[in-house]
């Protein structure tokens, strides 16, 4: 069963334990300076953002049909059956199309490295494979971030919405965005107020480029017949003209 993360903004106290645990798991330096950064970056794969008195967490959304995986020319990114979208640094050539295309602006680049890699959360693929929760969910003291099977988490989210309707904006972010994601959000306020993009379509984005790519075989077959035909006709016309002595 695919795994997922549920982040309930109403339960988050902004302690940033998830940030620390994530940094530790990736062996990234984590100090007050890094903690103060609010943006995702190559050295910060999850971050807590503050919106007035509310908190929001950012991390890779692990889309059901990931845009990054579809655009990567070398297939360095792929969606595992377990849920996480993982990255193979040995394939990546650094075109950064994944970064341009990601609707959540998640992948980050090691801009100052001479052998740079893309960095993003991999939902603790190795830990989850051995049945352990993600480092962030493990570290969260309030249960704002929990990790489990996606279906179970969706059910849990719906239960919370029904139980305390006054506490929540009545929607689960990530349920349908770009075809559904493996990170789900609950919030007290509309999601754009905690920094999430709400102008995304419900259909997976890869379909947009696939529509164009689908036409490639047709362009090749129809195109070669058409061009070959035109060439034959125009040259034949010349040949006839030459034989009839109308042209040298």
């Amino acid at each position, binding site marked *: 069963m695919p795994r997922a993360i549920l982040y309930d903004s109403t339960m988050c106290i902004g302690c940033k334990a998830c940030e620390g645990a994530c940094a530790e798991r990736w062996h990234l330096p984590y100090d007050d300076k890094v903690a103060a950064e609010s943006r995702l970056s190559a050295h910060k794969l999850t971050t807590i953002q503050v919106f007035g008195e509310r908190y929001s967490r950012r991390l890779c959304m692990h889309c059901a049909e990931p845009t990054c995986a579809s*655009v990567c*020319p070398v297939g360095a990114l792929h969606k595992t059956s377990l849920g996480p979208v993982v990255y193979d640094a040995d394939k990546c050539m*650094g075109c950064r199309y994944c970064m341009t295309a990601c609707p959540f602006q998640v992948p*980050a680049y090691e801009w100052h490295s001479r052998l740079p890699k893309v960095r993003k959360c991999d939902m603790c693929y190795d830990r989850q494979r051995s049945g352990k929760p993600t480092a962030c969910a493990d570290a969260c003291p309030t249960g704002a971030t929990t990790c489990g099977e996606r279906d179970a988490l969706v059910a849990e989210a719906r239960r919370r919405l029904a139980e305390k309707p006054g506490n929540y904006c009545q929607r689960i972010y990530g349920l349908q965005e770009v075809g559904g994601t493996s990170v789900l959000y609950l919030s007290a306020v509309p999601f754009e107020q905690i920094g999430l*993009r709400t102008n995304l379509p419900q259909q997976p984005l890869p379909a*947009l480029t696939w*529509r164009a790519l689908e036409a490639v075989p047709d362009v090749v077959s129809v*195109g*070669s017949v058409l061009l070959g035909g035109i060439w034959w006709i125009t040259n034949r016309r010349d040949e006839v003209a030459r034989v009839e002595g109308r042209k040298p």
Partner: protein
Amino acid sequence: MNGRGLPKVTIWRAIFVLLMAAGAYATYLRVRYGLGGVTNLSDQFPWGIWIGFDILCGVGLAAGGFTLVAVVHIFNVERYKPILRPAILTAFLGYVLVVLALMFDLGRPDRIWHPLVMWNPHSVMFEVAWCVTLYTTVLALEFAPAVFERLGWKKPLGWLKLVSVPLMIVGVILSTLHQSSLGSLYLIVPHKLYALWYTPVLPVFFYLSAICVGLAMTIFESWHSSRAFGRALELPLAAGLARVLAVLLMTFLFVRFLDLEQRGALPLLRENRTETWLFALEILLLAIPTVLLFQRRVRWNPSRLYGCAVLVIFGFIANRLNVSVTGMEAGSGTHYIPKWTEVAVTLSIIALGFAVFRVVAQYFPIFEEHRAEPVACEAFDDREAPVEVG
């Protein structure tokens, strides 16, 4: 140049040396400090002018090659043959320079070959990578006869002649695919690209505008060659291309506005924001030459014709930069101004292109066929004989 002693110092040569020096220093910095050290790119804005100009414009500006190959060899309009080879050379150099620019932009240029062995057919970038690789090979083969003629290699010339027709058809198809696919790259960012540019028909627009700028570049390049090598401009040919160009530009502008109207994006033009003005600039740069080129006296006047070609080229560049840079800024929530090193690399690559073209044109039979005989004017669509030349 006398061929003796030191080359004369001219303003253009001085500029060339300066640009190359700046480019060389920027290259050193790029290797030493990585992308972060020499670009103003960020996680929010990962593609800058090296993609927007060097790649998107570079490939488009090289479209004259496939356009003229199709005109001369597939549609068999033989009178354009004298300007075919320079167009192929322009295209070949263009693609080589695009690959060179890509080596700067890729985070791991040592892995530029990866898409050839690690496939992802769902990626537009994968398709572009394959098409550009194959088409650069095709262009090398299309240009090879000039090299073989110069070297006097009869046999390989014969072999090339045997495969020339299928080769040219493959070249046109590959160009059709990747010229349009450069537009398809942006189909995936409906949430980022401003609505004046984002449209499901981006690939069609990229293809049409590439053909337009390919014709404009052919005129531009003929004009420069005629001055550099002291030859007369092939005015009847250039004017003929200009006529086609005017019709294509008008079609392009028409479908562009039709699309805006269909998507209900026209009201956006009333908004006072940077994008509106940049859109207006792009459209004006294309609309002015369209109107002018419909007039015979503009087409048959070398400097006016050249001016129109330059406007089309700038309009095209404005379009590509709007799609790849300025149109993406608001959606990415950030601003991007290229760093001097980015500009230096880009300018030195352009300068290199001009210089290599000149050198190659000097040593290989690029304009040979032209010397044969001036073509009779009655053969052309414009009935009256050309009056003003030069």
